[in-house]
């Protein structure tokens, strides 16, 4: 298994860690180094008395280091990994020292236990796992349903109050007004609704056009409330969307076991949001044959690495399984059948109209969609009065935004000729994430 420097750096939680890691990627810093076919290890002199012991299990990859840092991978692990990628042949092939062998054995035992469990469940005829937190246990489920109902009932009263008083009045409300409702919804186990209420509050603070932005969010919240009231009468895929809108999560293991979609999937773009407590990474895939879009979501606590090691601009043969939805987008990788390799553009919408039609269709099926994948096959970037837009062959325009991000880079890559652009469309702006120009992919 070989990793390129970019893939390794992509594992790192933040830029300062990347720099620190690079600084340690020289043999000078590692008085002891070794490897075998499964693992890489080394001893690094830090500021303490004893050197730190760092090791990497190449099969995943997984890291372990005796330094006090809580980040994973720490700068020692990163430096060791980069050094191995660059100068692997200079590592001595040796027998594993005891501290490496121990760790690997522990890992093996753990994964064996996990596999045994899975096999046992499979032989039970696919019965749901006996987990304490399973939402399928009837007692628990009805508890939650009751709690959410109560919370949404309060939300409905709150929304009614909002429109009775009027938006102009709402704009002058203190932060508490919104925060209390959001906190109540968290308690009621509806975190998705809580997030939307918080976004409502920041929309009132934004400049020009705020009334429309606020109103459309109010509308979607109300729709969620009403949909939940009738949830039992809705078809299952729509129910899944309502639950997702409320913020209920499904574990990957709980996804339907029937066949996923196998295709050559192109990684079209990736967006990472680093919040205070939580980091979220959206990785967008596009099936070459099926022309389907898929969204992979990865989460990590702040400071921890994001697990996805898919690089935009590459494609791989894989099987994806989709989360239930009336307009399926979110997916998980069930199996990989090849290594990712660099690839060319994967088709996409020939016109802006085609994209907007697809968006309208998706919205009709799932009104709570927030970002939509937009792969535009042939557009030219143009700058009009300081604002960036893209133009298709029919002269139709789509604004890039919301911030001035990457416009000049896209223009440089295009040179006035059409390029394939991938971005996230939110109904008002296209956030560019990647460009294919002259056969090369560039991340924006």
């Amino acid at each position: 298994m070989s990793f390129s420097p970019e893939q390794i750096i992509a594992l790192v939680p933040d830029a300062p860690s990347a720099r620190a890691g690079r600084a340690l990627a020289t043999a000078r810093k590692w008085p002891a180094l070794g490897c075998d076919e499964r693992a890489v290890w080394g001893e690094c002199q830090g500021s303490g008395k004893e050197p730190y012991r760092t090791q990497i299990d190449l099969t995943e990859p997984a890291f372990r280091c005796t330094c006090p840092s809580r980040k994973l991978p720490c700068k020692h692990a990163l430096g060791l990994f980069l050094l191995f990628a660059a100068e692997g042949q200079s590592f001595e092939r040796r027998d594993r020292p005891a501290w490496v062998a121990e760790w690997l054995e522990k890992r093996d035992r753990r994964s064996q236990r996990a596999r045994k469990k899975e096999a046992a469940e499979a032989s039970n005829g696919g019965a749901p796992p006996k987990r304490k937190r399973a939402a399928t246990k009837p007692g628990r489920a009805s508890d939650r349903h009751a709690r959410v109902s109560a919370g949404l009932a309060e939300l409905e009263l709150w929304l009614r109050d909002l429109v009775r008083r009027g938006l102009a009045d709402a704009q002058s409300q203190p932060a508490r007004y919104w925060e209390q409702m959001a906190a109540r919804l968290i308690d009621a186990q509806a975190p998705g609704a809580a997030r939307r209420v918080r976004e409502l509050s920041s929309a009132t603070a934004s400049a020009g056009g705020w009334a429309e932005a606020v109103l459309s969010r109010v509308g979607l919240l109300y729709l969620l409330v009403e949909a939940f009231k009738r949830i039992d009468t809705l078809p299952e895929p729509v129910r899944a969307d309502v639950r997702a809108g409320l913020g209920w999560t499904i574990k990957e293991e709980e996804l339907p076991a029937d066949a996923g979609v196998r295709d050559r999937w192109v990684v079209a773009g990736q967006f990472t949001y680093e919040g205070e407590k939580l980091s979220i990474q959206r990785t967008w895939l596009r099936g070459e044959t099926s022309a389907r879009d898929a969204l992979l979501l990865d989460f990590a606590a702040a400071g921890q690495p994001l697990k996805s090691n898919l690089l935009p601009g590459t494609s791989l043969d894989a099987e994806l399984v989709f989360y239930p939805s009336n307009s399926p987008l979110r997916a998980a990788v069930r199996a990989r059948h090849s290594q990712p390799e660099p690839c060319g553009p994967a088709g996409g919408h020939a016109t802006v109209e085609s994209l907007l039609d697809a968006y309208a269709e998706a919205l009709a099926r799932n009104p709570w969609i927030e970002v939509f994948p937009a792969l535009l096959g042939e557009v030219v970037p143009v700058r009009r009065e300081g604002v960036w837009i893209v133009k298709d062959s029919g002269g139709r325009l789509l604004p890039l935004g919301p911030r001035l991000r990457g416009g000049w880079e896209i223009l440089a890559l295009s040179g006035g000729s059409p390029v394939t652009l991938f971005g996230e469309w939110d109904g008002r702006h296209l956030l560019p994430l990647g460009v294919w120009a002259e056969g090369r992919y560039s991340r924006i």
Partner: protein
Amino acid sequence: MTTWQNILGVAAIGTGRQELTLPPSDSLLGRALKGLDASDREGALLGAVALASLHRQAGLRAATDNLPPPEACDADQLPRCNAAAGRHLARMLGGEFKEVLPEWLAALGRAGLRVPEEHLPALFDRATKTRVLRPLVLEVMGKRGRWLAAQNEAWGWASADLGPDTWETGGIEERLSLLRSLRATDPRAGRKLLLSTWKSEYAKDREAFLQTFIVGLSDEDEPFLQEAMPYMFGGDRSVSVWLTAGELLLQLPSSRLARRVLEQVSPLLSYQEPAQGGALIEVNMPDDIKAWTFQNRLHIVAWYPVTNDLNLGEKGKWLLDAVSWVPPALWCRQWSKSPAEVLDAALNGEWGEALARGFIEAAGRYGDEEWVETLVLEERTRHVLTKSVFRVIARLVSKIPAERLDAIIIKDLAGGKREGRLDEREGWLDEAAVHLLLELSQEWSDELSRAVVGAVKHTLKEIRGTKALLWHLSDALRQFASRVSHELADELSADWPQEMHEMSRKPVEGFLSIIAFRRDALRAIVKEEAEL
């Protein structure tokens, strides 16, 4: 008013104050809205909001315009550099190892490659702020770069065309580069061009334009330069302009100004060899220096104090200036003595310090290599140099060719002529030596690289972990790193002492990481993609 505006209006005021009434409509939306229960005001509005806003969002159509897009760029002839080199560039543009960027760009230009398109905007922004990068960027931007720059006013310097109108209509940058290129090929035409608009130019522009005259300077330029010099009446009002003109005139030994300076100043000094004691130089100081200056029309001497500090007194400063305008080789010729002997004699005499400082300025002004070497290596003048501001050193060596300076420094580091105790925290690399090294901004020769790095390693080994390198030296390490020969990187990184003071560790680590990066980045430029 549209349905949406209607809804917006009621929502803004509040259903408490106004009811939502929608005109009947047969559209899809109209029919859906009709289904809402009008008796429940809030519910009806909320429902209307949900329906109408989704309707708008889904029904969004793209705007069009028929404005023609900019013309597409021609295909580039220069090949793009490989992906690894692109990654190095991305790191430098991101802030790491910024000091290596000029060298990297120059190497890319020599290799006949261009930068990847996606880095052009960041590169242009950087070169807009840092002027010295501009000519380097022009070499490696390719046609795509020129095309891109034409679309952003901030990057105008990259898309400027030097045409016949440039002198009249262009900005200062373009006009300067036009004048520079003219002086290199047809100095007379350059002079005529400048003359044509001389009277209407700003003073600071005039100074810059005059400075281009150093190229292709000849006696033909004398009349024009003399115009810019003051005599009793007339002449340019800006001091820096006529000083620049004066400097240029003095580079022409047959110009009237140069001859006047020689005639009037040389009799002021005389070399004496008394029966007892060493040789010394006596100064025939005029009583009224102001009158002397006016009489001899050597205002250039009186009105530009080279240094403002020092306890030299009025006459001392005047003497310094007077001597600074005379090519130091003259004294050697006049008295048939070597620079070392002249210096020695000067320092023995009454006006020693002023004379020494004057010789330093003169050596720099006239680029006298022998004098520069003597001044650097002689203990007593070295002492003066170390005390001075680094600008003095910069002026001293500004006209010396790099190879000569290289040789001088190597001699110095090999032991030089410095007696007296060296400070073990700097070894041979005292402040003067460090300033001299930093004046060599191109890549150092192998020999110099080894000598300097050897000196630093030696110093570290002497002081071990108990003392730290002197600040001026540890601070300069970073700059040394971007100048040592990058091909010797492996050799220069080896054999550093493990034991060193905490304060010295970071600068040394910085040094080593910079040369490692330079080696990797410069090698990556020429490697084939497959090899990487």
